């Protein structure tokens, strides 16, 4: 066939028309498009969660000392949600972001899958799985060795609290083994307990009846940022904020920075940081001068008032205090009058979340303010909440080595001549070890992350390097675990039985028991059982100190008559006993806690900022919480510090630009966030970032605020009273 031009064109056009018609009228392309759309949405790697029987179980959250009741929602064996437990005496149905994200800690890749031994260098994250028998045998070999060398006192043990059966098993182990170096990590509780000992003569902590107060004067407490038992305090805050047209309570926040608590308060007084004690005493001056104090209470139930009054009246007039604090004399006078006349005033102490011990004088001055208005151990007031570590256990049998070891002075000096008042001085440990590398030969760490939470991170890292043998009982690959030689992982808090002491800052006594609400996910073991297994393998009197078969037997025995109620409902709300005894006014002029550093070369003051969405303690922020951080707190892996635009102008800093932050203790590159909410001259740094442990969802993000801070000893207690440090910011 001859193909001429005309035929070619006809053929081409015809074919095109045919194809067009074919495409238009054939279902094929439409079907293909539809298939493609469906295919793009049916990728097999999009998970389909399995269905099943839904059930609920109650337990107690153990992620902070707030100890809320929680209810988990389960689908068959899986926990799919953590919610606040309705009707629980602490949090009645509410939950905080960390508590709600507890699921991610349960199932996350930061769980230690079973006993592991370090391979390679410390901190390299190289682990080898070993059996439980082998892991326990390794600890026993090392500890037996130290014991046979007569050096049991070179073993130290750190736990987050000393309340409850598990920390007490560790404490008992140390005593039976022969070391006085059982240590609790630092918090405001140290100072609260010490103040109660000095002012009330009791082994107790401070509980605040927040709900019934109608005037709350907070000395820098982050009332809605995780202070005390966070959900309970936020619920009290809501009570203060409700009322028909008129708020049920007046809230006054004393803080150099516009925290959330300050923003929500009726009055925010940004006083010069570090002068809070002077302000409290200045307020007392006005209250005494105007005869607004509760003379009946002061005359009948206190001692030492005359001398204290003399000190307050001679040294803390509004004029003097105004010069120190930067608050006008008129404001001081008005605030004092409003407080004293409120009817149910309450002065609250404990900076931020209360994660550092702080100044003892400040704590005592705030408590004295409460005593002045007769606000001790009564409704809407400050309560002496008795704390006991006595579980009624038989005396610890001690062999010759144990009694000789226990006879040695504590390494941290607590309870010795220099520091007679305190029980523990954990912040001192890095210095002790760095000065004397032989001091600690083995370290046991349970439910604490001293590597991350202790101030002066660089010195802490050096000290850790010097300890020859470190055993972590951590559930997670936290920083301390990452730098350990052996990890003997504890069950997750949703997987285990444990008694839970009363929440911090709560004025009522609530004893709780957490229980397993999900099957053990990994090859973990209850830390109570692990420590007893180690003791039993050590033999002799160390083994004899633990007559129990297993941890559950320990728990049942310790709970005694409460066990049945605890097993059924999970908690016992106890009727608080009102301790007798007089309140002691402690008349000694305060000495300000000086900042470390040089005011000439480091003209700024760095203060930590504690945020509700950022866990700053031993538990690392789960991904859900880190995701909620503001874009002015973290950007990628870079941390923002907050400065006033005036400060930025003075030092040539610009918003969202890099700067070098430097203190006597540490140095790092940060981003600048300009905020009108912070006092000029201050630099605010979020506390809780800069993790190196856990995993990539948290590690490497930001800088650890503790790495810039050093330990400044409180002149009376010897605890760390650090509230900031001198700093320099230079644009880079």
């Amino acid at each position, binding site marked *: 066939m001859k193909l001429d031009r005309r035929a070619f064109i006809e053929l081409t056009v015809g074919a095109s028309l045919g194809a067009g018609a074919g495409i238009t009228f054939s279902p094929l392309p439409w079907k293909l498009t539809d298939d493609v759309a*469906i295919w*793009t*949405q*049916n*990728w097999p*790697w*999009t*998970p*389909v969660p399995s269905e099943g029987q839904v059930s609920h179980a109650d337990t107690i959250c153990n992620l902070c000392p707030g100890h809320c009741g929680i209810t988990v929602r389960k*689908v068959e064996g899986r*926990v*799919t*949600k*953590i*919610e606040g437990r309705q009707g629980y005496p602490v*949090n009645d*149905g*509410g*939950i905080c*972001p960390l*508590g*709600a994200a507890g*699921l*991610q800690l*349960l*199932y*996350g*890749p930061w*769980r230690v899958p079973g006993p592991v031994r370090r391979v390679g260098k410390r901190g390299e994250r190289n682990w080898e799985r070993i059996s439980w028998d082998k892991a326990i045998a390794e600890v026993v070999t090392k500890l037996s060795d130290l014991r046979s060398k007569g050096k049991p006192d070179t073993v130290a043990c750190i736990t987050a609290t000393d309340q409850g059966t598990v920390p007490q098993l560790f404490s008992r182990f140390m005593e039976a083994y022969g070391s006085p170096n059982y240590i609790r990590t630092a918090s405001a509780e140290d100072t609260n307990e010490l103040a109660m000992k000095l002012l009330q003569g009791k082994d107790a902590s401070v509980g605040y009846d927040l709900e019934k107060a109608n005037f709350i004067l907070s000395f820098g407490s982050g009332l*809605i*940022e995780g202070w005390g038992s966070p959900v309970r305090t*936020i*619920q009290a*805050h*809501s009570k203060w904020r409700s009322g028909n047209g008129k708020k049920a309570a007046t809230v006054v926040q004393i803080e150099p920075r*516009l925290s*959330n608590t300050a*923003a*929500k308060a009726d009055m*925010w007084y*940004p006083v010069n940081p570090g002068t809070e004690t002077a302000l409290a005493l200045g307020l007392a001056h006005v209250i005494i001068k105007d005869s607004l104090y509760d003379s009946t209470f002061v005359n009948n139930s206190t001692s030492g008032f005359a001398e204290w009054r003399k000190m307050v009246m001679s040294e803390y007039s509004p004029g003097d205090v105004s010069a120190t604090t930067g608050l006008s004399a008129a404001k001081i006078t008005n605030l004092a009058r409003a407080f004293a006349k409120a009817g149910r005033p309450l002065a609250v102490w404990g900076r931020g979340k209360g994660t550092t011990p702080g100044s003892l004088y400040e704590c005592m001055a705030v408590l004295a303010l409460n005593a002045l208005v007769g606000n001790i151990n009564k409704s809407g007031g400050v309560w002496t909440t008795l704390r006991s570590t006595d579980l009624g256990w038989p005396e610890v049998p001690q062999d010759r080595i144990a009694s000789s070891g226990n006879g040695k002075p504590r390494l941290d000096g607590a309870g010795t001549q220099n520091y007679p008042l305190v029980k523990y001085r954990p912040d001192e440990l890095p210095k002790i070890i760095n000065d004397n590398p032989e001091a600690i030969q083995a370290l046991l760490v349970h439910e604490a992350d001293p590597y991350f939470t202790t101030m002066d991170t660089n010195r802490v890292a050096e000290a850790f390097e010097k300890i020859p043998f470190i055993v972590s009982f951590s559930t997670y690959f936290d920083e301390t675990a990452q730098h350990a030689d052996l990890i003997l992982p504890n069950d997750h808090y949703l997987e285990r039985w444990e008694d839970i002491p009363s929440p911090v800052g709560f004025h009522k006594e609530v004893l709780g028991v957490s229980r397993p609400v999900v099957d053990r996910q990994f090859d973990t073991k209850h830390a109570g059982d692990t420590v007893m297994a180690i003791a039993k393998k050590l033999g002799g009197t160390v083994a004899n100190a633990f007559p129990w078969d297993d941890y559950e037997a320990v728990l049942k025995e310790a709970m005694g008559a409460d066990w049945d109620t605890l097993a059924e409902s999970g908690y016992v709300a106890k009727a608080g006993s009102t301790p007798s005894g007089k309140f002691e006014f402690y008349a000694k002029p305060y000495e300000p806690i000086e900042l470390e550093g040089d005011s000439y070369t480091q003209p700024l003051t760095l203060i930590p900022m504690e945020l*509700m*969405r950022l866990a700053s303690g031993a538990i690392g922020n789960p991904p*859900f*919480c880190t*995701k*909620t*951080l*503001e874009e002015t707190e*973290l*950007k*990628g892996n870079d941390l923002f510090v907050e400065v006033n635009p*005036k400060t930025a102008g003075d030092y040539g800093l610009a918003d969202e630009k890099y700067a070098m932050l430097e203190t006597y203790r540490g140095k790092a590159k940060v981003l600048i966030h300009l*905020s*009108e*909410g912070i*006092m000029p001259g201050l630099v605010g740094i979020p506390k809780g970032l800069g993790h190196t442990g856990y*995993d*990539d*969802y948290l590690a490497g993000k930001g800088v650890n605020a503790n790495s810039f801070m050093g330990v400044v000893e409180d002149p009376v207690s010897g605890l760390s009273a650090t509230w900031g440090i001198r700093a320099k910011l230079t644009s880079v």
Partner: protein
Amino acid sequence: MKDAHHKGEGHQEGHGTVYKYGMVINLDKCTGCGACMVACMAENNIPFRKEDTNDRLTQNFWMRVYKISNGGSFPDNDICYLPRPCMHCEGHGHHNRTPCVTVCPAVATDYNHETGIVSQIYTRCFGCRYCMAACPYHVRVFNWWDPKWPEGMEEYLNPDVSPRMRGVVEKCSFCFHRLQRARNKAYSEDRREVHEDEYQTACTQACPAGAITFGDLTNPEHKVYELKKTPNAFRLLEVLGTNPKVYYTSSRAWVRKAADVYVGKEGSGVTHT
């Protein structure tokens, strides 16, 4: 608003029982703690990534808490937190103008007249993101990546909410699956109505401050009915006429004012109801 209420049953309109679920958020109580965001992420299987700290353009939130400021200089600066779920806009009149619904070419999102909830059907969505552009509240988010959970973490996923795939838009559903669950329970007990406490969103339930109140805005027995009428109540961008079902209350005038962004004299005729 009509007054034809039947006790506890929502009001009748046409043949079906009609509810208008909505929220009243007390900004005086809200502490910005973020529990609502986390509870929402846990309830609704919202994915997260290693990298997504704080890239607000690509982060996936159904409930997001905004921090707003009065712009004052130290020490007159003030801040307020504002939780923002989907507003579930009703629009006005019979042909409602829910901004996202009107633009969706795939009918992947719709306004449900029986519940007042704006739905999102992931398998219908093909990711054109018109709805994201149309939504004045930025409640809609796009799945730029495959949802991936770290090893082991798929264990906690909620079977009541399907995990979404890459390439689709998602948003707050007022925890619609919880309504379905509550309805099933009611039907199994031979009831037609769902009680107020039977259907609460995850954020409402979690809020430690009790700042969020959720219920049927048309039912006088539900708490939201009175709360939305308090003098300090307002809604976001009322000038647009989107008729949102999320109300806020604040005792601070600057916060109420910040809720509307007027151009020129636009706001002069608008009253805050």
